[in-house]
């Protein structure tokens, strides 16, 4: 059976656009999200949070809260594991998560959890919080990345830095990355023009509309159940078990429908707290965050401060590039400084390149992954400088990018050589798109940018069971954030040769499948998709065996063709093709249930590139920027369900527009977050955006049976720079700090006018 050859054409189901299997539930209101679950005897919980950016916790008195009628349990740090060492598992991640979900000796940011209550109603739980007395010793704080690296900055935690950090840096610098190749100084000497500039971006929140929510049950027998909105329930199981001294397998975690994640639901915040309360009260406990808690204590992405230097010849060849990227990661290590550094120059085939990244702690919430973590900021800085070089040298920005573009076999700025990639194809499609040559109105400007993301594979397990009536059910372990159940069913339909509608894909709980890594790194359609295809092939192999037995011929003499077992080869003989449903109808009598499965950590996730074209109009009087036209061109490898691929392109662009123009975490001098709500943290509205045009480029990824590349994250990499370049073209001023909010644009225009 020639099942292992890559298939990139002649698809019957892949590439079609059927309705999603969860659509009906989601339009009728019956889909169950994190906060929609209830249990008999359920309590409601609430969390007390630090009002200080940095404070030593001298004592916590919970006695009055415990005495309040209706209160069934109060927990503090003392109710969590005392066995998690400082450098435990996941490179110290368990300790960091524990410290983040419930403060120990110090509160490290405004909103840091210090205690929690479970009571018979949500109102009683909130009332009880007011009775908890915390004695704080307020300490000096720092929330800005450059300030946090400066000599006299308050130290968050001594000894948090790992061995990558060179000597002599402030203890708040906890990780360091350096990479590149060639001789950048020699390269700059060859350039006709060198531009060196500094950029900054503010922290932005993933902004999923569904706040974190969970329902936990846990007995003193160590057995528990957890329902939660998460991108990775096996990870939640592993971490919660560690933080509560449970055996991992005794805690069953079920992922609810997830109301958006974008990376922000790849860790745990309230889940261990709800479990601790449930154990103490011996009752199910529901815990739901308010929106202000989501802003103050989850996410956001890193803020950055960046220095870029790029040299170019007058015909547009980049001779050298270097970047320094300082990422503020909040109160714990983990800001994606290496991703920022590694993505920065990835679109370009460079002889001389050098990049440095710093992970810096400050008194802000621990940063969480946000869609291509670290990459959009780098693209903003680098692509702004390249745009400026093109402008000053009088060159077309797409032509210059084509001249320098990474292609198959290029040595990437971060080391390895690229396999088949589609950057050139996206640039050519952007250049040929009518948008690029459309006339602009006065006051409008056009910008373009490229973007890059690695994509990821990761631990994956899928099971595919056939039913007697010839239908199939797939169990996957990656929560569906953008329609992946439909994509899995399409791939299984293709392999089995049965209609899409005859397949149901379910997100299995942790008791049902082997470990599945989080839905992150744009890995789901790639890795769970690959596993689904392999599981289907495993089932097909078993079907062929049953057919061979029926016909009394060797297994090798049976092949699978479009839903039928058919005899094949010289010794096969003449038999009528057997449809799948005839083989499943009597499977109990021919050897038992037929189930295909696949478990592996696929490593062939193909990297992905995009090119965005955007037209912006800047109102010089008010500083307001309107996005008037937007086109996304991105390589999907192979679009399994093109409509959902378009949805990822559009969604990434929209989030990028918000990041570029409006969204920012604003901290006061007191170190407290000033805009912890959707009124003041303004994400794009329907009235802010135009239609977002999409072009799907397909350069197959050799690492997937159908050529799939992840598509979820790359779409947020180019928008910040593309919009900055459009604003610069429209207004004549270069904005080096995001967001390009009206006050910043007005100020920049004023300085330009004044000389």
């Amino acid at each position, binding site marked *: 059976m020639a099942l292992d050859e890559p298939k990139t054409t002649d698809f019957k189901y892949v590439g079609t656009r059927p309705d*999603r299997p969860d*659509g009906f539930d989601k339009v*009728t*209101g019956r889909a169950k999200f994190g906060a929609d679950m209830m249990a008999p005897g359920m309590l409601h919980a609430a969390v007390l949070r630090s009002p200080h950016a940095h404070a030593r916790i001298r004592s916590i008195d919970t006695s009055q809260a415990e005495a309040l009628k209706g209160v069934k349990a109060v927990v503090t740090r003392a109710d969590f594991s005392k066995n998690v060492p400082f450098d435990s598992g996941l490179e110290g991640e368990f300790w960091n998560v524990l410290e983040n979900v419930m403060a120990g000796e110090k509160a490290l940011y405004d909103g840091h959890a210090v205690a929690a209550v479970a009571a018979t109603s949500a*109102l009683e739980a909130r009332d009880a919080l007011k009775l908890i007395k915390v004695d704080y010793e307020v300490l000096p704080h720092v929330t800005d990345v450059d300030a946090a690296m400066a000599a006299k900055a308050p130290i968050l935690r001594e000894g948090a830095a790992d061995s990558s950090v060179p000597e002599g840096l402030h203890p708040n610098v906890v990780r360091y990355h350096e990479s590149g190749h060639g001789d950048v100084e020699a390269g700059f000497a060859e350039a006709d023009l060198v531009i060196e500039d500094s950029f900054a971006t503010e922290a932005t929140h993933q902004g999923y509309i569904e706040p974190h929510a969970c329902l936990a049950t846990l007995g003193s027998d160590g057995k528990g159940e957890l329902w939660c909105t998460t991108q990775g329930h096996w990870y939640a199981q592993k971490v919660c078990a560690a933080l509560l001294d449970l055996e991992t397998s005794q805690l069953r975690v079920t992922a609810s429908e*997830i109301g958006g994640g974008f990376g922000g639901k790849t860790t745990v915040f309230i889940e261990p707290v709800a479990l601790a309360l449930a154990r103490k009260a011996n009752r199910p406990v529901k815990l*739901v965050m308010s929106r202000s808690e989501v802003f103050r204590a989850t996410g956001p992405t890193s803020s950055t401060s960046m220095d870029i230097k790029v040299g170019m010849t007058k015909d547009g060849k980049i001779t050298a590039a270097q970047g320094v990227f300082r990422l503020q990661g909040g109160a714990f290590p983990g800001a994606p400084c290496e991703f920022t550094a590694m993505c920065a120059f990835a679109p370009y085939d460079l002889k001389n390149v050098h990049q440095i990244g710093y992970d810096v702690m400050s008194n802000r919430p621990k940063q969480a992954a946000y869609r291509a973590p670290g990459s959009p900021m780098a693209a903003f800085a680098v692509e702004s400088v390249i745009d400026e070089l093109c402008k000053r040298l009088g060159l077309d920005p797409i032509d210059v990018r084509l001249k320098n573009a990474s292609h198959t076999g290029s040595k990437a700025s971060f080391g390895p050589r690229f396999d088949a990639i589609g950057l050139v194809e996206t640039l050519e499609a952007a250049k040929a798109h009518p948008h690029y040559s459309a006339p602009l109105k006065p006051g409008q400007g056009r910008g373009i940018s490229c973007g890059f993301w690695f994509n990821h594979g990761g631990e994956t397990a899928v099971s595919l069971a056939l039913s007697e009536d010839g239908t199939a059910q797939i169990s996957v372990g990656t929560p569906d954030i953008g329609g992946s159940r439909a994509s899995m069913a399409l791939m299984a339909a293709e392999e089995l040769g049965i209609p899409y509608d005859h397949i149901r894909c379910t997100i299995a709980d942790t008791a049902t499948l082997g470990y599945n890594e989080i839905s992150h790194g744009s890995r789901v359609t790639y890795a769970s998709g690959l596993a689904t295809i392999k599981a289907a092939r495993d089932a097909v192999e078993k079907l062929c065996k049953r057919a061979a037995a029926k016909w009394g011929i060797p297994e090798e003499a049976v092949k699978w063709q479009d839903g039928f077992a058919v005899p094949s080869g010289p010794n096969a003989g003449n038999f009528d093709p057997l449809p799948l449903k005839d083989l499943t109808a009597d499977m109990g009598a021919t050897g038992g249930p037929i189930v295909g499965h696949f478990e592996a950590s696929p490593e062939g996730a193909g990297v992905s590139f995009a090119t965005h074209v955007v037209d912006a109009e800047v109102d010089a009087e008010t500083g307001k920027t309107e996005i008037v036209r937007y086109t996304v061109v991105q390589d999907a490898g192979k679009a399994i369900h093109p409509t959902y691929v378009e*949805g990822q392109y559009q969604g990434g662009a929209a989030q990028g527009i918000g990041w570029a123009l409006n969204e920012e975490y604003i901290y006061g001098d007191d170190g407290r977050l000033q805009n912890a709500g959707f009124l003041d943290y303004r994400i794009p509205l329907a*009235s802010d955006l135009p*239609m977002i045009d999409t072009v799907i480029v397909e350069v197959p990824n050799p690492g997937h049976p159908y050529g799939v590349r992840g598509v979820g994250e790359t779409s947020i990499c180019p928008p910040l720079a593309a919009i900055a370049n459009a604003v610069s073209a429209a207004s004549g001023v270069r904005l080096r700090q995001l967001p390009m909010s009206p006050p910043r644009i007005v100020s920049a225009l004023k300085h330009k006018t004044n000389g």
Partner: protein
Amino acid sequence: MSKIHVSTTVNGDDVEFLCDPRETLLDCLRDKLHLTGAKEGCGTGDCGACSVTLDDRLVCSCLVLGAEAEGKSISTVEGMAEGESLHPLQQKFIEYAALQCGVCTPGILVATKSLLDKNPDPTESEVRYWLAGNLCRCTGYDKIIRAIMDTAADLREAS
């Protein structure tokens, strides 16, 4: 604190509940009537995920107290389909993939139905501004707007 007895109508059914004076209509719909279609995305009237109609007026149910529902008529997403037939907007949202995670979808459907009931022939701008109180973080609104414009055209043709 003593509770308030509320008699009201939800999706055509007479219902009663006891609520704390501080509880919102959204709390009551979700926790007392177990109608969890309306979502709490913010609790401050900024995101529209809790949109319902109160005597045919579109409201954020997180900004209405449960007690204010007394004697009123409430419609939620759970009341949009008729029997086993989806409302045309619901059907088109599935067809256009006008939802990704789906958590904003109930609010957007209720808000849009309310618009089309008043204005069967809205312009794209009118739709965009009407929905400015309903946040969606996944889609960039493109497919939502297209689904709505197409539904409106179909409904006009049918009437």
